[in-house]
């Protein structure tokens, strides 16, 4: 059962952390339509996370609940890709602060949705019937996330000089983090061996073709992949996840067992 739990938590944490990040746009979107779109994408992601956490809770038994998993685990227990916890702007040093950058949001959603569209489709064949059912639902949702982020990627990339330069900078910043997609963690390897998980490296050629076609249409240059391969899915995170969790978990921790 452990391979299933670890793998499901990886998928659930991905959805929850990106759902929380995208929700930061709620009330702050560049235009009303995009404010609503990002909130709707967040709702889908948080809904997917809930289904997965509920499944983990039922496997763990005892007094485990979806809320316990979302609100009462700490940074090192989260198994999401590092890419998904980064703030909506490029790297900064020291105490520098930046406002939300929509290009960064769009690039991240595109890179992740392109992967998940393929992964959910493959997971429909998981030997875990509950996961297969969640995958079938999530696939229907991620297609719209992919269509949305891809359209905006093209619009920004093939837009003005300013939008092109900014979205290229976002791509240069985020692209190296996708290396983590393809480096198996021990938990993924165990899930693949158990027939629950999917070997993501078999999806890489399709992911590359989705990404390359979109980048070409967007007149963007694909950055070279190099440098440190992040290990968020093994619990080794950037400095940003702690702040995200602090905000997300504070209410539940201030009122443990609260129901509303």
């Amino acid at each position, binding site marked *: 059962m452990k391979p299933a739990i670890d793998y499901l938590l990886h998928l659930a944490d991905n959805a929850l952390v990106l759902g929380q990040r995208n929700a930061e746009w709620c009330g702050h979107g560049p235009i009303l339509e995009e404010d609503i779109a990002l909130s709707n994408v967040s709702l889908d992601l948080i809904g997917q996370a*809930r289904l997965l956490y509920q499944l983990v809770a039922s496997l763990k038994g005892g007094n485990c609940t979806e809320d316990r998993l979302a609100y009462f685990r700490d940074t090192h227990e989260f198994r999401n890709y590092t890419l998904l916890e980064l703030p909506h702007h490029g790297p900064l040093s020291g105490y520098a602060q930046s406002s939300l950058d929509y290009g960064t949001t769009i690039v991240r959603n595109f890179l992740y949705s392109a992967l998940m569209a393929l992964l959910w489709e493959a997971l429909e064949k998981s030997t875990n019937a509950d996961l297969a059912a969640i995958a079938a639902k999530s696939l229907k949702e991620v297609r719209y996330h992919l269509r949305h982020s891809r359209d905006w990627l093209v619009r920004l990339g093939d837009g003005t000089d300013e939008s092109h330069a900014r979205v290229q900078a976002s791509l240069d910043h985020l692209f190296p983090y996708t290396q983590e997609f393809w480096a198996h963690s021990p938990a993924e390897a165990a899930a693949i061996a158990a027939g629950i998980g999917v070997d993501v490296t078999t999806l890489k050629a399709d992911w590359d073709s989705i990404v390359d076609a979109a980048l070409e249409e967007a007149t963007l240059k694909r950055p070279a992949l190099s440098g440190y391969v992040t290990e968020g899915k093994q619990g080794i995170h950037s400095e940003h996840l702690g702040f995200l969790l602090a905000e997300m978990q504070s209410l539940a921790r201030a009122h443990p067992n609260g129901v509303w």
Partner: protein
Amino acid sequence: MNTSVEAVWAALEELNDPEIPVISLRELGILRDVHSAPDGSLEVVITPTYSGCPAMSQIEEDVRATLQRAGISARVMTRLSPAWTTDWMTDAGKEKLRAYGIAPPHQTPAGSKVVNFISKPPKDEIVPCPHCGSAHTVESSHFGSTACKALYKCRDCQEPFDYFKPY
């Protein structure tokens, strides 16, 4: 079909969706099944629409309350698989959506592979305006007031409208 199962269907026939209160849960395809369980009790099976749809808990409560008002004792179960699809929406339900000002969903594309889905919208994705019937419409946003809808505008009557997306 025994009378109690029929009574449950009848009691829930008029129960409408909380977000789109002109279409019933049965017409939406959310109300999947009513049967008697091996232990003799009645079970009502519902299926979630979008994973994050905030109306789902309301729907479950509405089903419970409606049955209680009708004096029927039944369990409400949620089933994920097969995943809900807009193809389950009845024709009468689609007509009600249109009359309410929401363009009903097209059939989901057959064998819709991810790569085909994103490349270009299929040609049959012309969404007629629910107000004037014109095919001269344009999408303004992939997401409307809820995740299940996209925002469109009619170029003839100039009215904005929601399109219930195929799912």
